[in-house]
């Protein structure tokens, strides 16, 4: 019911692919999450987010929101698809599904039944850098949720009988999400080309041929290695206070022993990139061409001070919506594009990406759209941004932070994603200040430094029979 009739002219991309375990309607009914920039963004200064760490290493973050008798309980593991061993792509996501099977204390389905019995909602998702499990329930059920979640942190029972059907489920999930969708297939190839060495080039859901071979031993090994309190962050948002959360967490999660210390999350890094690359896919289901161009850029975690904030503002000013330069130039003034935009995927443990995209309309060609986008980038890199557009973009970001406080599960995600990718609570809370501090010169410099066609990857989705010349 909340579909936005004009969404197609304001499209924004989700930062990193996320995949969820389950799919019933309960989860689908959730409120939309924030657009990308808000992931790193924060509540205004008056928020009273508190944090403490249990003896076993579990970090706990409490985000009070006393407006409704609802709490969001989210457990984030600092493990994602980019941490997978070579040849085991998809294990992080497959394992996320397996977490819904039974434990030595609770038979399969008992946790879900307990959630359903109080009208709660639950789900989980996996990304490159993290895996998270959540329930939304009334506050009096918080302890029960913690008990179940702490239980499956260590006591999962994985028999061959549950492995086979669930592997079929994730294979069907891959078919549903990727194999049936030429755009999704091309996006996979785009990432595989953009990242020449880093595992962000491997799809979160996994490559089909490797997914097919994932087995019980892989799952158990993965579980034993990564699922431990000292590799997790618990976020509790909603109608609850810190003292209560502390007492309940000690009673439940506190009983789970600390796991072995994990080595630092050091992944293969990108070599210097000095080529432009092109990926294209022609498919009979496509009637209109579209393109996307991406660059590897620093993330909030890897950037120098202020650089990620400048990239965020660059994404907003260049192509962040109907007021952006790309939209104004290509859609409104020149009339050559149906949609166009740009975005920065800032929330990531390692270097991430910046992307522009466009679709022609009317008699315009894809080449015209691409050339016009290039021209806008060039203009921005050469002449910079003006103070008014910078100020407006900053205001939009800062305002989004205030609006974000209206949604407790959105808040939980914002903090969880930041903490699971190397950020701190303070990073989240200071984000508006750091955005305010970005200068026009910083934004121009980010464009000049990173949006260089000589090392971009372009991808083209084309109708059957058309090829990219």
């Amino acid at each position, binding site marked *: 019911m909340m579909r936005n009739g004009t969404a197609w002219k304001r499209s924004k991309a989700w930062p990193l692919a996320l995949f969820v375990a389950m799919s*019933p309607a309960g989860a689908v009914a*959730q409120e939309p*999450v924030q657009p990308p920039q808000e992931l790193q963004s924060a509540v205004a200064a008056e928020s009273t987010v508190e944090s403490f760490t249990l003896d076993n290493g579990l970090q706990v973050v409490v985000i009070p929101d006393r407006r409704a008798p609802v709490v969001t309980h989210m457990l984030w593991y600092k493990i994602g698809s980019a941490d997978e061993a070579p040849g085991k792509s998809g294990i992080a996501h497959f394992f996320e599904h397996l977490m819904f099977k039974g434990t030595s204390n609770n038979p399969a389905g008992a946790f879900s039944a307990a959630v359903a019995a109080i009208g709660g909602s639950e789900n989980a998702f996996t990304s490159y850098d993290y895996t998270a499990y959540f329930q939304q329930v009334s506050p009096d059920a918080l302890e029960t949720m913690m008990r179940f979640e702490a239980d499956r942190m260590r006591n999962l029972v994985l028999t061959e009988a549950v492995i086979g059907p669930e592997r079929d489920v994730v294979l069907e999930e891959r078919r549903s999400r990727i194999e049936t969708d030429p755009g999704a297939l091309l996006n996979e190839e785009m990432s595989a080309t953009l990242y020449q060495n880093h595992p962000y080039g491997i799809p979160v859901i996994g490559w089909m041929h490797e997914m097919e071979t994932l087995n019980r031993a892989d799952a158990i090994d993965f579980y034993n290695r990564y699922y431990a309190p000292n590799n997790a962050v618990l976020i509790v948002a909603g109608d609850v206070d810190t003292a209560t959360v502390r007492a309940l967490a000690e009673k439940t999660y506190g009983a789970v022993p600390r796991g072995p210390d994990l080595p630092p999350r050091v992944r293969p890094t990108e070599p210097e990139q000095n080529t432009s690359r092109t990926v294209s896919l022609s498919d009979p289901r496509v009637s209109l061409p579209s393109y996307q161009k991406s660059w590897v850029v620093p993330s909030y975690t890897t950037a120098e001070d202020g650089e990620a904030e400048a990239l965020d503002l660059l994404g907003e000013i260049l192509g962040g919506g109907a007021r952006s330069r790309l939209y104004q130039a290509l859609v409104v003034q020149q009339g050559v594009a149906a949609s166009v935009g740009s975005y920065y995927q800032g929330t990531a443990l390692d270097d991430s990406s910046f992307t522009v*995209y466009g679709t022609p309309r009317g008699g315009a060609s894809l080449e015209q759209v691409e050339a016009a986008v290039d021209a806008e980038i060039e203009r921005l890199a050469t002449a910079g941004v003006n103070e008014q557009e910078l100020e407006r973009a900053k205001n939009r970001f800062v305002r989004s932070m205030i609006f974000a406080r209206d949604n407790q599960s959105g808040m939980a995600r914002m903090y969880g994603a930041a903490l699971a990718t190397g950020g701190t609570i303070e990073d989240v809370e200071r984000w508006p200040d750091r955005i305010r501090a970005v200068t026009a010169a910083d934004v121009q410099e980010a464009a000049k430094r990173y949006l260089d066609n000589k090392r971009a990857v372009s991808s083209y989705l084309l109708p059957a029979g058309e090829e990219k010349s």
Partner: protein
Amino acid sequence: MKTNRFIATTPRLMQVKVLLATVLLAFAFVAIHPMLARADMRIQKVESPAGITAWLVEDYSVPIVSMRFAFRGGSVQDPGGKEGLSYLMSGLFDEGAGDLDREAFQDRLDDSGAEISFSADTDEILGSFRAIDEDLEEGFALLAKAVQSPRFDPEPLERVRSQILTGIEAGSRDPQEQSNRKWAAALYGDHPYASPTEGTAESVKTLTREDLVAQHEAVFARDNLVVSVVGAIDAETLGRYLDQVFAPLPAKADLREVPKVMPELGQELSVAYDLPQTSIRMAYPGVDRKDPGFFAAYLMNEVLGGGTFSSRLFEEVREKRGLTYGIGSSLSTRRYSSGLGIATSTRSDRVSETLAIIKDEVQRMAEEGPTEEELEAAKRYTIGAYAINNLDSSTSIASTLTQLQLEDLGIDYIDRREALIEAVTIDQVREQAQRLLTTTPTVMLVGPEQGGGSDQPAASETPAKPETETGG
């Protein structure tokens, strides 16, 4: 489903909604909004000096005011041959209004800190407004212009039209998109529900500024308006803004009569396409929102394939056999039609197996109904889920209150809802199961041609519906 990768690069949840909308096309997921009760949530009925009414929940914990409003109308009010008119109109309210052209309007809106958006559904045009409390004055002033005097200037009109046409063309070879259209046409015949909300390539080309002006005048009236507001504002202040935004509208809407329609059941449809998966959808009769049997049917559907991870279809098709990623059933209660839909997707070589299981489950439900335990669990879930799904943010509360007003359920509905659910007996649920699930459904398969007979679905029974991603 996703016809264009770049259009699909919307936030993940938006994709979900798009997906849902397509999966349930015939059954636009009209929400049987379970209600949710905030302990201290008090809904006030506010009447402005000029007589505009709104439901208000005052809440000062966050400095935000959220408003949702709706004009009954929507694409069912598009004149014949002018399909897509409401959809086009909904894209033009922030493209210039009153004395402000597009540039001026959007600059002022951006500087005001307020957000305004409109969308068209089959049954209504929805508006959404959100602002930080200190920015209300300018925000409402702009909303008033957008609601009362959209300009429909030539440049925005042609641009948005062209964007819509591009979207229609982008889906023209996409099997899912095409199957959605086929599905709606097969179920609804010559009823407006058969037409896509965004119109057709032919109809969109014929729309004129005069059409837009006439439609705006006919639909944007005080007697078919509902308004809900949540946030940091008191009744008196809200009353002033209500008058500023809505009082100048005409008193009465001029709406076409739209008949009720029963979906045409018992059809076998297929779209042959070489895909790695076959999607299956089925339509059964539904139940009207005002029908005394509504909650009995709702609870029956919950047990069969509703919103939890414990439904029968989820358990049998996904958990036990790994045949699919998503499966579910849902009730749709649109103003002029109701239905029960099942959808899923599976490997093409396992279609007949999947259909057989779904068919068995439907038959078992029709013959036996749920067990006492299942009914009890469904009641607990349905009662508890209301607050969590419908009241967890100002915007979701405002949406929920708007839906309640559109469905004419009464300001005390949230208080009454639990008792309505508790009162449902197992016999009533069995009766609904029999009533809804013994009819031969319409079934549609989209995927590779099913080889020689054995894989062909038994013409009648089968259910399944996938809801895929969420999270994000």
